[in-house]
Structures are given as structure tokens and as C-alpha cells.
């Protein structure tokens, strides 16, 4: 019964979304406050209805109601409860429902907290949100309905893909979608600005925090996905330049650019047209990502099922929204008045440079991702564009960008003093140079590339610290005053420093792992010892073990460092009986910031087993850096300046909602 209720709620939500997309828009044209006022209740009701639908699907999963086709295909009564819950979005239909739920949440937030927005802007924004919701609800109802019943109901389900039976599924998709869909707010504001033909102070003050929040979630979602792939797939890699990964990375790149151009727009009311265009492009990348992952044009662990009608449907949505918004942009962008002037050497100039680098890098990633698809559909040739392509194109674009990052926050608005800034960054540069020499001459096996990469990472970290130190007046005033000034710095300054340092931390992890890791692939018999990076692993043999819905063979390794026992590392080969599918559970031991990674292969006749063992120095920094970036975003969100309108208590609570990652 609740399943039908969920289905019904979804249909109602679709009808309501149509109302929301038309009535406020018409009201804004006619200047009717009553018609414009339809937007908020429609958005809030839509949120309630979609929540009901989502809850109905969760209930079906928890009760293991196999009369629902979606539950039957993706669940099993013996599956642990946590995976019954997360399995709701571990499939195509459920994940699309999560997508629209998050869209509805964002729409609801605009309705709730947008009371101080100009009424026409609010009405137009909610209308655009309504359009997006209507399109995706129609997609779900017509091609991907999660509420389809099976008659007769099967007794047992087919279980969830074992790779997805992991806590990562609880975190990665919701975070990623919060990021993807969060950019719909920037998009809706951009389209609303084009419809009205103007952007005002309220516009920029709104777009900036919403972009920041979405960016933060997307950063977390990508990092979480990367760590999940790292430990779950057993290949020891943290990034594969897989088209699906690129699909999430593209909106991150353009979103990062948007974040920076929105600063210029908010502070200096310059770059208006460009910011609007970036907002459109960023959400277009989100839509493209949804299309690539959900349409089945790519095969990957993310493409749950392939059905050509879905691909065509999402492609239609994609063309409609991207084409429509870009056409609107071409038609109306000239109506937006250009803003303040600035000298190329200035904070604005630095942010423009950032945008050029990021959008160009995004373009190369886009080409690398789409080129094989386009080529195959035109000529039938099947090529693959892998990591070497991206290292060769993305790398050279990122290095200069990273090198100029520390200059940005130190340059003055309007007209900066490059020589002065360079002088102030002298200590940071000296520190980074020292690190380069240290790594090159004192770490065994470090190449020049590794040394320079490490130096670049420290340059970012030192640059961020320099920014904080200079802004609190270290060197000019006494330590007591400097400390007081430090505590009184605007939070957005801390946010910037934290995010930029986080970038350096991630880079450090990437450089250390890719250039300094060691690995062994070999066969071991029980009692034999493997030496790696100063650690010894003694293989103790396989032990069988039975889990709730799988059986596994656990390979136990005793870890010692120069005779000192450090406990066991356990890696296993699992077999999920329902799906008849084996998986490898890597054994990972974190030592300091580095990790020892053990992956089991096939057993061979004489009692031995193939193992792949990696020593991954500083690998955890890759994800810790992403957490620092998220934290930077969160700290920035708490900045007084970004609180919308008058800093009343209620508004403050609203803005404080996204908590720091740690």
C-alpha cells in the first residue's frame, strides 16, 4: 500500500512541479505578487511529496518487499540493514529518486530562506527549479519507476552488487548529488538573472554561498568516491581518469571557477556576464555527468542497467536545458550591465587567470571524456583515452595554476603590486625551494619530478600560511596584537587559506604516492615473509569465515617493523552466494600518514597464493587534503559577509547548516 502511496506522491509532485514552473514565471512577467507567491508553497509541498515517495521506497527495502521489482532486483532478506537502507540508491531508479529528492530539498531551502530576495527574482528562481524537477520527475515516472510491482511476488531477492555493499555507498552518492544538484541553485539564479535582464547585490550574495555549499559537498563526494574505489576495488589506485570519474570532476572544475568568479562579482560587481555563463556551464556539466552515468553510454560499476530509452530521454533533457539556457544567454547577456574596471595585475586579474586555467582544464578533460564516444558513434572506431592523455594535457595546465595560487589572495583589489607580493612571498618560496633540495638530495630514489612536485605542494601550504601571517600583521606589530588580529580575521580569509593549503596537502599525497610507492607482486606460502619499505609481512595462511550473505577466505599477515610486532593485516577473498560473485577485500594498515595495502589473488596448487602488496607513502594526505578543502568551504560559509541580508539569528542558523567535515 505504501508503495502505491509513494508512486502517487511522485505523480502529484510532478503535477505540482509543472505548476511551480509556469505560474510564478507568469506572475513575475505580469507583476502579480499573488501568482508569484505560488512558488514557495509549491516548492515546499513538492519537497514533502518527494520525501513521502522516498520514505515509501525505503520502507519497501527495509521490509524486503520483493513484490516491488526494484527491491527484488537489488536486495536480499539476509542483507545487513545498513545495506538495505543504502541499497535504496544503489540502483538506477533509486538513485534518480535521490537526485530529485535533493533537488526538492534545495528548492525547499530557497522557498524557506529566500523571503528577503526581491519577489520577481525569487519567483523566477523557483520556476526554473520547478522546470528541472518536472523534467526529472517525468523521466523517473516514464522510464525509471522504482515502484513497479511484480506479480507474483518472488520469495527472495537478487541481492545488491557486492561491490556496493559497503559503507561508502551510504556517503558517496548523497554527497556527490548534494554537489551536483546544489549547482542547480546557481543555475536557476543565472537563468532568472537572464530572464530579468539584471543582476543586483542580492543576486551575488545569494549565489556565492550556495555555490560554495555545493562545491563543498562535491569535493567531499569525489574524495569519498576516490577512497572507496581505492580500498574496495583492490587495485590500489586512487584515480583512474575513468569517464565516470571525469563526469564528477568536470562540474568540480567549472564549479571551482564559478566560486572564484562569484567572489569578484560579489565584491567588485565585475565579471557579471562571465559568472552567469559559468553558473550555466557548471550545472550543464552536472547534467552531462548524470547523462553519462545514467544513460548507459558508458559501462562501469555506476551504470546499473542499460536501457536506450533512458539515454535518449536524459539526452533530451540535457539538450533542452543546456541549449535553452545558452540560447537565453546569447539573447539576453548583453542586457547585463558590465561592472567595475580593474587592472590585469590585481585580485580580479588573478581570479580571471584562475578561471581561464580551470575552464581550459575542464575543456581538455571534457574532450578526453567525450572524444572516444563521439569517434565511435561516427566512425565505429573504438579507442580509449586513458591516464597518459590526461597527464599530458591536464597536468601542464594545472602546474602553472598551482604555482600562481599563493599570489591571488595577496594581491590588492583593482590594482595590485606584483613585485611587492613577490617580495612578501619570498619566505614561502625559500621554504619550498629548501624542501625541493631536501627531497632531491636526502630521500633515496626521489626523482627531480618528485622533488619539484613536493616543492610545489609546500609552496601552496606555505603560501596559505604567509597569507594568514601577513593579514594578521606578523612582523609589523607585536605578537600579542598579531594574535588578536589573527583571531579577528574574517572567516573567509581562513577559508581561503585552508582550502588552498588543502590543495597543497592533496598534491603532496598524490606526488608522494605516485613517485615513491613500492609494490611487490609475488606468490607466498604460509610461513613465508615479504619485506617492503622496512616492514615485514609474514603470511599465516587462509582461514574460512562466514558473513551474513557471503563466505570468505581470510589471508592473515603478521606485520613487524624491525622485530617489533604491529599486529595483523587481513585481506580476504569474498564470495557472495546469491550473485555468485567473488570480490577482493584489501587489507589496509595505516601507519602514520602512509598505508600498507595487501590484495589477494588466486590460490595456486602448492598451498601458495598470489599477493599484491603496496607501500603507499603519504597516501592518506590525498583525502585529508580534500577534507581540508571542505573545511575551508565550511569556514567560509560561516563568514558574516555571506549571511544573507541582515544577520538575524534565524538566518545565521540557516547558513550554519553545512557543518565542517571534521
Amino acid at each position: 500500500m505504501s508503495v502505491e502511496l509513494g508512486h502517487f506522491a511522485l505523480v502529484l509532485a510532478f503535477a505540482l512541479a509543472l505548476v511551480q514552473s509556469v505560474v510564478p514565471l507568469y506572475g513575475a512577467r505580469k507583476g502579480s505578487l499573488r501568482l508569484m507567491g505560488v512558488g514557495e508553497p509549491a516548492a515546499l509541498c513538492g519537497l514533502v511529496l518527494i520525501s513521502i515517495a522516498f520514505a515509501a521506497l525505503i520502507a519497501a527495502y527495509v521490509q524486503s518487499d520483493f513484490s516491488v521489482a526494484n527491491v527484488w532486483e537489488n536486495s536480499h532478506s539476509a542483507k545487513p540493514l545498513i545495506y538495505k537502507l543504502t541499497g535504496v540508491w544503489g540502483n538506477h531508479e533509486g538513485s534518480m529518486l535521490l537526485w530529485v529528492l535533493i533537488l526538492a530539498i534545495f528548492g525547499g531551502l530557497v522557498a524557506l530562506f529566500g523571503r528577503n530576495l526581491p519577489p520577481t527574482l525569487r519567483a523566477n528562481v523557483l520556476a526554473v527549479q520547478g522546470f528541472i524537477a518536472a523534467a526529472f520527475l517525468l523521466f523517473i515516472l516514464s522510464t525509471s519507476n522504482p515502484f513497479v510491482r511484480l506479480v507474483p511476488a518472488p520469495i527472495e531477492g537478487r541481492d545488491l552488487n557486492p561491490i556496493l555493499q559497503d559503507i561508502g555507498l551510504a556517503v558517496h552518492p548523497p554527497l556527490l548529488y548534494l554537489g551536483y544538484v546544489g549547482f542547480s541553485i546557481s543555475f536557476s539564479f543565472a537563468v532568472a538573472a537572464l530572464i530579468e535582464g539584471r543582476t543586483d547585490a542580492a543576486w551575488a550574495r545569494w549565489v556565492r554561498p550556495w555555490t560554495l555549499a555545493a562545491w563543498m559537498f562535491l569535493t567531499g563526494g569525489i574524495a569519498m568516491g576516490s577512497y572507496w574505489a581505492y580500498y574496495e576495488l583492490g587495485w590500489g589506485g586512487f584515480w583512474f581518469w575513468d569517464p565516470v570519474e571525469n563526469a564528477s570532476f568536470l562540474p568540480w572544475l567549472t564549479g571551482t571557477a564559478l566560486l572564484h568568479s562569484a567572489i569578484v562579482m560579489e565584491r567588485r560587481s565585475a565579471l557579471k556576464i562571465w559568472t552567469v555563463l559559468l553558473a550555466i556551464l557548471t550545472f550543464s556539466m552536472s547534467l552531462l555527468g548524470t547523462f553519462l552515468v545514467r544513460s548507459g553510454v558508458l559501462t562501469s560499476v555506476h551504470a546499473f542497467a542499460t536501457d536506450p530509452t533512458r539515454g535518449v530521454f536524459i539526452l533530451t533533457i540535457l539538450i533542452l536545458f543546456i541549449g535553452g539556457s545558452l540560447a537565453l544567454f546569447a539573447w539576453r547577456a548583453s542586457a547585463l550591465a558590465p561592472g567595475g574596471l580593474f587592472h590585469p595585475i590585481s585580485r580580479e586579474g588573478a581570479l580571471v587567470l584562475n578561471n581561464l586555467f580551470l575552464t581550459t582544464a575542464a575543456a581538455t578533460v571534457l574532450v578526453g571524456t567525450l572524444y572516444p564516444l563521439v569517434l565511435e558513434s561516427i566512425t565505429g572506431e573504438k579507442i580509449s583515452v586513458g591516464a597518459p592523455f590526461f597527464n599530458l594535457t591536464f597536468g601542464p595546465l594545472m602546474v602553472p595554476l598551482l604555482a600562481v595560487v599563493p599570489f591571488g589572495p595577496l594581491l590588492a583589489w583593482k590594482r595590485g603590486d606584483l613585485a611587492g607580493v613577490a617580495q612578501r612571498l619570498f619566505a614561502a618560496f625559500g621554504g619550498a625551494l629548501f624542501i625541493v633540495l631536501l627531497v632531491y638530495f636526502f630521500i633515496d630514489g626521489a626523482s627531480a619530478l618528485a622533488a619539484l612536485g613536493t616543492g610545489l605542494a609546500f609552496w601552496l601550504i606555505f603560501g596559505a600560511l604567509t597569507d594568514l601571517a601577513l593579514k594578521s600583521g606578523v612582523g609589523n606589530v607585536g605578537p600579542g596584537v598579531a594574535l588578536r588580529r589573527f583571531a579577528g580575521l574574517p572567516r573567509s580569509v581562513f577559508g581561503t587559506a585552508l582550502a588552498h593549503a588543502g590543495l597543497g596537502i592533496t598534491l603532496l599525497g598524490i606526488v608522494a604516492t605516485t613517485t615513491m610507492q613500492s609494490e611487490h607482486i609475488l606468490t607466498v606460502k604460509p610461513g613465508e615473509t615479504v619485506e617492503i619499505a622496512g616492514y615485514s609481512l609474514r603470511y599465516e595462511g587462509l582461514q574460512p569465515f562466514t558473513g551474513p550473505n557471503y563466505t570468505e577466505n581470510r589471508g592473515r599477515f603478521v606485520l613487524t617493523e624491525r622485530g617489533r610486532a604491529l599486529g595483523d593485516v587481513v585481506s580476504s577473498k569474498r564470495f557472495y552466494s546469491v550473485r555468485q560473485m567473488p570480490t577482493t577485500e584489501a587489507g589496509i594498515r595505516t601507519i602514520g600518514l602512509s598505508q600498507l595495502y595487501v590484495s589477494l589473488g588466486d590460490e595456486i596448487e602448492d598451498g601458495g597464493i598470489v599477493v599484491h602488496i603496496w607501500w603507499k607513502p603519504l597516501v592518506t594526505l590525498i583525502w585529508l587534503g580534500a577534507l581540508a578543502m571542505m573545511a575551508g568551504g565550511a569556514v567560509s560559509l560561516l563568514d558574516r559577509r555571506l549571511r544573507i541580508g541582515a544577520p538575524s539569528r534565524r538566518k545565521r542558523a540557516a547558513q550554519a547548516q553545512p557543518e565542517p567535515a571534521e
Partner: protein
Amino acid sequence: MTRKQKRLSIIGGAMGFLAAATALTFYALGQQTSYFYMPSDALAAQLAPGERIRLGGLVEKGSIVRGQGTEVRFAVTDHEKSITVNYSGILPDLFREEQGVVTHGMFQPDGSFVADSVLAKHDETYMPKEVAESLKEKGLWQEETAQQ
């Protein structure tokens, strides 16, 4: 600087970036793409040794031979021709006889094929797409090969 000059300098800069990125992209596409072949196409194409390709097909029944330590040899077939692949390392979890695989590697001067990575399908309903499509083109697609 006037507004016009500023705009020109920004547009000039952007064009410079775009040109650099385009050049890089074309260069990288020329260097770093690898083509997909089924065994009979790969043999017909007379590939030069050392050219990286992706070789896909089905793992031939009874062809998996374990060598010393981590070495393993198996044949990839499209039911017309087959190519023996040498690989050292851990085979994917779903690597089985008569299942689709894609291997990355190159022909050696002596005509053997050495792979540095082997990909199998992700779960029981998925076969590497290129393999599935190529088998369909050759009329060798059997539903049970894909489903199991």
C-alpha cells in the same frame, strides 16, 4: 587601460590558453590513445611491436596456464582467431573461462602479446561493452555468454 583594451587583452589571453590547450590535446590524442581490437582484427592489422592496444575477446576454454610465481598465460579468442596473452599479476575477481576480457598491452618483436593489465566485467550482468558489441557484429553473440 580603457575598457576596450582590457577586453581585448582578456580575449587575447583566453585565445592563447585555448590555442595551448588545443595543441596539447591534439598532441596527446595522437600519442596516447590506444585502439581496441578483437584477435582476428589485431592479426589482420599487422600491428608494429610496441604499439599499445587493447585486445578484447573471450578467454578461451582450457587455455589458462599458470607459470612461475605470478605469471599466467591465457588465450583471448573471438572464435575465429586467438592470441596468447602473457600477464604477470593478479587477475580480476571475475576472470573466468569463456568470459569477456579486455587486456591492455603490446605485441613483442617475437610476436607474443604481453599485457600489463587485464579487465574483466564488474558484475554478473556486465560484459566489457566493446567485447559485447564486437561479438554481436561478428554474429557470435550468445545471450548466455553475457548473462550466466
